[in-house]
């Protein structure tokens, strides 16, 4: 009798689960594939560290512990679901080997208790601490999920307690259930039946609830982490645009839900609305409409709505502005703080850029003030400011510089000056400092001069993939023809594009940032410093050097060589806060309550340092502008300039 009832309930629950999952499964299966099968070992490694080890959850200690208790608890308690089913058929049945093993009984008892502790911490966070990261999340749904989890483990403990009272289980191995067994007597057979049924029914009800809830991450998180990007996060997935190819292959980013890739959809179904991304987002922090969490939630709700109650997939509605507004799409600085923070490896930045690609290439819809940048990059002079290409060497002055001519032998290092480094008065100082230092160290180096052009980074982050592709192909051809092997760049954006994105266009280069090369030259004593610079300095990590590429130590090593006393900002290294210029924001006007560069500069100023060291021309312009706007005496300077001032000739 019980077996029949169990079979019926199981069949019903599974059928409901499948029905409710169908629309989302169909959507993901029909979606564009994401080429993410390289380096399976690295992907498997993430499953160990990030899923089993909960690495990214522990980036916040207490919430991390809360989640780990519940997650590990459920992993351990999984066999008890089978145990409950067996016991429903016959109270004497249990799992072979495990069912009566005292160590297993103890582990179940311990982890069930830890889950309760986890739920208690979760409620304390949500009801007492109430962090701002939950703003906009579905709080009621979270409460229901937590209460269900609580009900699952409480019924499990009580069921185990009743089995101890009935003499079916060993009380000595289960301290908590053993203590609770006092609630029952040897005649509590009916209570035991009610508890085991309640336990199983709650588990199955939870299963059927999952497919349409934000708790679906317990199924989607592991594959989402597996299919996350390998390698530096600064590399954007290229989108080849072949105007000669068949029309059906021509795609301009993401316009509707039907254009989202498998990974992008999996991202949407993996979000638990924890808000860690929102907490670190420079746009949200300065009062702009963009929150990475709300972006993902809005896209998810749009897609979920599109698959509606009928199960029919209606995907023709544009994601912008139906799901998210234009402003949200343009607010992003692509700093990657959200991606780094996300415990389930949602890739917000790639989706935002894909939305931009559609707006720019298909609809020509973007903040109009950025048009000058695109025209400049596309125009004959190929730089964002449209400055004459012939003036690329305008910074040289009396510094001995070799301009690599076609046909000449390539130097050991090609110095990729970058457009800012060539044209912007502040960045030019960095360029000049690096040139002098390279000469002082006797490095064999040269520049491309007028043959250099924009790497295409601002166009690409703006969504103009086609323009980027043209520049990438052109620059790769120039560098390859010149026989260049090693490149040094002062701009973090050029560095990222040359190192991580040009390989997709055939480049085979060893790319270093100037701070790396300078640190290397210092270590080899090819550069000798006085070490006598006085004052305090705080180093601002550039997103595309630090977080996106893991270069944290080289600039700090160089600063250590100057003799300046270093002090760190509260948000430093991988948690550094953007200057506000990334993602082509350099070329757009900023709205919102506060400006990102002012916010960051205030953090730098709060350290009491008299110099803010930067390692990217964008950061230089943004933070220096903030300093000037505030009328601050704090100096903003590139690491290279600070080193040059402390270097022996």
């Amino acid at each position: 009798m019980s077996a029949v009832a169990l079979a019926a309930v199981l069949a019903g629950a599974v059928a409901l689960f499948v029905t409710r999952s169908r629309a989302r499964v169909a959507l993901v299966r029909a979606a564009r594939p994401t080429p993410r099968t390289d380096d399976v070992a690295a992907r498997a490694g993430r499953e160990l560290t990030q899923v089993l080890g909960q690495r990214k959850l522990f980036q916040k200690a207490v919430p991390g512990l809360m989640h780990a208790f519940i997650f590990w608890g459920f992993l351990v308690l999984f066999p008890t679901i089978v145990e409950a089913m067996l016991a429903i058929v016959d109270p004497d049945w249990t799992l072979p080997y495990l069912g009566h093993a005292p160590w297993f009984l103890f582990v179940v008892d311990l982890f069930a208790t830890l889950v309760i502790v986890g739920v208690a911490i979760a409620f304390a966070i949500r009801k007492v601490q109430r962090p701002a990261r939950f703003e906009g999340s579905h709080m009621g749904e979270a409460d229901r999920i937590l209460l269900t989890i609580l009900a699952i483990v409480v019924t499990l403990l009580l069921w185990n307690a009743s089995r101890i009272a009935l003499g079916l289980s060993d009380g000595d191995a289960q301290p908590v259930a053993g203590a609770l067994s006092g609630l029952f007597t040897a005649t509590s057979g009916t209570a035991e039946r009610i508890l085991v049924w309640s336990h199983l029914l709650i588990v199955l009800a939870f299963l059927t609830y999952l497919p349409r809830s934000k708790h679906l991450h317990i199924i989607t998180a592991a594959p989402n982490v597996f299919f996350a990007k390998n390698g530096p996060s600064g590399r954007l997935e290229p989108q080849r645009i072949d105007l000669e190819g068949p029309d059906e292959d021509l795609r301009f980013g993401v316009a509707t839900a039907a254009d989202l890739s498998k990974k992008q959809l999996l991202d949407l179904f993996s979000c638990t609305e924890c808000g860690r991304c929102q907490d670190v987002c420079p746009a949200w922090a300065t009062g702009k409409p963009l929150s990475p969490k709300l972006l993902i939630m809005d896209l998810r709700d749009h897609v979920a709505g599109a698959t509606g109650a009928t199960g029919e997939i209606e995907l023709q509605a544009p994601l912008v502005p139906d799901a998210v507004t234009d402003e949200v799409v343009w607010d992003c600085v692509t700093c990657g703080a959200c991606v780094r923070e996300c415990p389930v490896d949602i890739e917000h930045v790639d989706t935002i850029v894909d939305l931009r690609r559609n707006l720019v290439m298909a609809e020509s819809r973007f903040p109009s003030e950025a048009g000058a940048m695109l025209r400049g990059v596309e125009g004959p002079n190929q730089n964002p400011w449209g400055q004459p290409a012939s003036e690329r060497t305008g910074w040289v002055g009396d510094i001995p510089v070799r301009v690599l001519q076609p046909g000449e032998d390539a130097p050991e290092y090609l110095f990729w000056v970058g457009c800012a480094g060539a044209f912007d008065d502040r960045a030019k100082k960095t360029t000049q400092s690096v040139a002098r230092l390279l000469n002082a160290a006797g490095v064999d180096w040269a520049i491309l001069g007028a043959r250099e052009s924009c790497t295409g980074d601002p166009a690409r982050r703006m969504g103009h993939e086609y323009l980027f592709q043209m520049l990438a192909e052109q620059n790769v051809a120039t560098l390859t023809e010149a026989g260049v092997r090693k490149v040094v760049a002062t701009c973090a954006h050029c560095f990222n594009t040359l190192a991580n994105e040009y390989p997709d266009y055939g480049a085979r280069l060893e790319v270093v940032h100037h701070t790396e090369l300078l640190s290397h030259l210092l270590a080899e004593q090819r550069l000798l410093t006085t070490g006598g610079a006085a004052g305090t300095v705080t180093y601002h990590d550039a997103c595309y050097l630090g977080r996106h590429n893991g270069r944290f130590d080289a600039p700090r090593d160089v600063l250590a060589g100057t003799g300046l006393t270093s002090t760190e900002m509260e948000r430093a290294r991988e948690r550094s806060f953007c200057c506000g210029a990334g993602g082509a924001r350099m070329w757009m006007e900023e709205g919102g309550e506060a400006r990102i560069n002012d916010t960051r500069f205030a953090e730098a100023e709060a350290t009491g340092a008299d110099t803010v060291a930067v390692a990217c021309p964008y950061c230089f312009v943004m933070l220096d502008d903030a300093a000037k706007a505030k009328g601050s005496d704090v100096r903003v300077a590139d690491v290279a300039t600070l080193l040059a001032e402390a270097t022996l000739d």
Partner: protein
Amino acid sequence: MTTWVIAEVGPEGPAESALELLTKARDLGGDVAAVALGPGATGAAEALGAHGAATVYASDDAIFEEHPGSAAAHVLAELVGAHAPDLLLFAGTYASRDVAGRLQARTGTTLMANATDLPAADRATTEIFGGTAIVEVALEGPAPRLVLVRPKSFAASPSGGTATIVPVTADVPEDRRGARVVERHAEAASGPKLEDAKVVVAGGRGLGGPDPFSILDDLAAAVGGAVGASRAAVDAGWVPYAYQIGQTGKTVKPDVYIAVGISGALQHVTGMKGAKRIVAINRDGDAPIMQLADLGVVGDLFTIVPALTEEVRRRAGS
């Protein structure tokens, strides 16, 4: 040889570009006519005539405002068919580019865009490679040849003539009307029209606050110019974004640009480097703007600007 100037008109008269093009058309020789479509057309005929149009084909019909581009292109195509002009000159503005493109699709004849001069009726010059080289191109193929000329390529000068007005019926079939304007929205610009001003007085961070902009207003009023600002001044909230000159603001090409308290960061310079003469007033003689300026004045702007205004007023008065 008949040359037509497609004049942009409004209730306040013809656009300056129409008078510039008429002046040029006169130099090219032959018959010169103007086509003015839209409210204000008949009213503009006198000024058009005074600048060399012997005939003005005019229609005051509001349909040209209701269906921008398409209505004018259709009526022009009919007029061209009836009168067979040889050369049509358009101002290189958004509105006229729209009309010229649509008209070319109907005539199938040569269309030259972005011309800076017409050395002869079958020749045009244009800039290539971002303005680093100037080339002369031949206009070939059958008439009418259409040329879009950059505004301010020529100086307008009156000929003292009068025009015969030929009324044009705005008969545009339904399927030729295209997009219809459903709403107009005037962007509230508290400043004067920067892009057209012959003199621009721009203020930057050196002003130190919103109030000193009044001394720039005084100077601009004295010289008949407009006031602009650098991004720093706009970001600081001293003046609205409509004032902003630079990479992410407006691009201006006045005859005289007076930069007051502006250091000359690249972001700003890209918006004003096309000015014919640049005057910089700055406390810092090493500011980058000084390298760009034709005249650099090092000193306190609060002393220099009012003195300059005073001197301009005195000379204007005498």
